[in-house]
């Protein structure tokens, strides 16, 4: 493939990566992923650094220093940090994607995460005008338009509001996997699928606030607007706003992080992430959509016939194997745990199947942890690896009966220009040395 096969980026259609100048060598990338290019896969149950049989393990004899000396005091880090040995587990940018890092994206390191909740500091970040810094005392939320009583709320008002709820939802950017429409491009699930996170939100139902303002019967849409320098806006159907949207001030038990919209963001369960307006400042009720830039120029899906779908809000069921994956290669023959995530904007993940041979044969994976509607679900396949080449895939199903399509099935309907809503089945090629690569199969 030549560089002309690269899809346009989400935003800047003039963006072009300088492929030849890419600073990345394959060896450096694999080092980042935790193994050298030539790392040997250990056979059987043997650990990588195990001593010869019969020789005592130097990690046991003598007793390690950390067992014989006092450790750090309790409040060494008043706000705790991950172990220093996990320093590579961070968000990463693809700098060639966008012209400005104030309107850009950094990706969740899915390959290193497990369970279903994303740690607050690792949630992917997408800004359109940089990160706003809002003093909580100066925060205001305005509701107006087709309502009986236009209202202004403070943060304290929202925190005193009756009916506070806690709900777990995934947030996926509509452009997640958008770089993969024309073929395998980025080598790591952090980059191919990392525009997603899954959090427990604390907040109040949007319905409570709209009811207080009294929505006029002519009201059909709500414009949500942010207080950042993009003054981000999206039109949301009133029916959705009244059904399950939240005005949230908490994530995973603490205040929203600044990059997630501190102090208040909108939660729009199952729908594309751009609608979850951060730094929420205004809600306006109207009788038609506003046709804002982010629902016309962007976040519309250009199909092969030159026409475009708009208001494609719901995120289709999707899944990806996070381990093994290019940044998390296989290191051992014998017992291994394949792990991945699945989610659907239409409801609950009912089943995930895994294939190790590129989609010829499938085994139903084991789901563990909560399987909640519009929330990330974790699946596993415990398997023995004899060192043969694998073509790993996962296929999610939800409780509406939707089955995640192959990339070919998706392209047959949508072409390759739509940028958004790519939920096709991902393939990882695992080589006999454990090295894993993003590929397409046919």
């Amino acid at each position, binding site marked *: 493939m030549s560089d002309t*096969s690269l899809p346009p980026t989400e935003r800047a259609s*003039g963006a072009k990566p300088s492929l030849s100048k890419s600073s*990345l060598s394959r060896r450096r990338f694999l080092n980042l992923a935790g193994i050298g290019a030539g790392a040997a896969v250990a056979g059987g149950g043997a650990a990588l650094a195990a001593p010869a049989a019969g020789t005592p393990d130097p990690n046991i004899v003598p007793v390690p220093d950390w067992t014989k000396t006092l450790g750090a005091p309790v409040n060494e880090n008043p706000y705790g940090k991950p172990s220093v040995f996990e320093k590579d587990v961070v968000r990463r940018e693809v700098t060639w994607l966008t012209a400005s890092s104030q309107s850009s994206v950094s990706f969740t390191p899915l390959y290193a995460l497990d369970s279903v909740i994303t740690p607050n500091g690792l949630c992917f970040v997408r800004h359109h005008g940089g990160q706003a810094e809002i003093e909580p005392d100066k925060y205001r939320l305005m509701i107006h338009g087709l309502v009986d009583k236009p209202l202004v709320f403070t943060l304290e008002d929202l925190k005193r509001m009756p009916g506070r709820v806690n709900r777990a939802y995934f947030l996926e950017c509509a452009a997640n996997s958008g770089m993969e429409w024309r*073929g395998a491009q980025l080598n790591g699930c952090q980059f191919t699928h990392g525009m997603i996170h899954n959090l427990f939100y604390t907040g109040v139902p949007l319905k409570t606030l709209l009811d207080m303002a009294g929505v006029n019967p002519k009201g059909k849409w709500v414009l949500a607007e942010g207080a950042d320098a993009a003054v981000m806006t999206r039109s949301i159907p009133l029916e959705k706003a009244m059904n399950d949207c939240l005005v949230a001030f908490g994530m995973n038990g603490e205040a929203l992080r600044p990059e997630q919209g501190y102090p208040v963001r909108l939660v729009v369960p199952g729908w594309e992430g751009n609608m979850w307006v951060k730094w929420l400042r205004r809600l306006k009720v109207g009788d038609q959509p506003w046709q804002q830039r982010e629902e016309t120029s962007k976040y519309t899906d250009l199909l092969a016939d030159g026409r475009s779908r708009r208001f494609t809000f719901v995120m289709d069921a999707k899944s990806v194997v996070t381990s093994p994956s290019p940044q998390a290669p296989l290191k051992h023959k014998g017992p291994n745990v394949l792990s991945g995530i699945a989610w659907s904007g239409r409801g609950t993940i009912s089943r995930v199947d895994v294939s190790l041979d590129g989609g010829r044969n499938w085994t139903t994976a084991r789901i563990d942890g909560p399987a909640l509607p519009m929330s990330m679900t974790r699946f596993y396949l415990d398997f023995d690896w004899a060192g043969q080449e694998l073509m790993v895939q996962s296929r999610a199903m939800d*409780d509406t009966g939707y089955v995640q399509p192959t990339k070919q099935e998706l392209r047959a309907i949508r072409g390759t220009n739509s940028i958004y809503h790519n939920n096709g089945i991902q393939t990882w*090629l695992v080589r006999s040395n454990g090295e894993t690569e993003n590929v397409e199969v046919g």
Partner: protein
Amino acid sequence: MWKSAETLLASALLAGALAVSGMAVADPQPGKPAAKAEKDKTDKARQAVNVAAPAATAPAAAKAIALGRPALQEEIAAWNIDVRADGEGLPPGKGSVKEGEELFLQNCAQCHGEFGEGAGRWPVLAGGRGTLKSERPEKTIGSFWPYASTVYDYVHRAMPFGSNLSLTPDQTYAIVAYLLNLNDLVAEDFVLSKDNFPKVDLPNEANFYDDDRETSEKAFWKKNPCMKDCSGEVHVTARAQILNVTPDGDPPKGNLE
């Protein structure tokens, strides 16, 4: 206390089990409104699984909640900046292509190019007509955007990048007029105003239609996806490593200082 904690746990586990074994799906009828209402109810019940007493979920709805305060007209006016496709929200004012050219060269061209062609990797704003079906579509105001109102709204709201909300209505009208002229949609002597605005149509408007995935992609709702011998021999047809465009975790470099 103990008892209720146990009950909560049990109900959570039960809901988990239900969710996982929820395979016995009703006939997939995604489009049906009745089915949708039913589905919304199920989804809500599942998310609210740990709510002990259902009655407690409904806030004192009957009683007015004494929080928030009325918004003043001046406050609404200060934040009410949206402009709709039918022209609602446009402020009084006007501006010519000529004035717009001057303003664009001063405030926009360093990123978007003198003719909206895009400098470096910044967005292209003009041209691209007839490219939407091609390998590399160029989506611009002239080739792609459905409504001119969006140009007014967005330029005022978010541009110039780095000093948004700084343009007056007259300046914004002028810049929009210039952008329409760059896209061959109005003549060089055109003056755009609140009054003639709704008459400015963009050529690609008719090519947008509402989400129809639940009908056009109905084939993706399958009862029993294939599990065994689903295809012939499978081969690798494309590889990411050949492109070698994956970043390596170097610290991000900003373009704006």
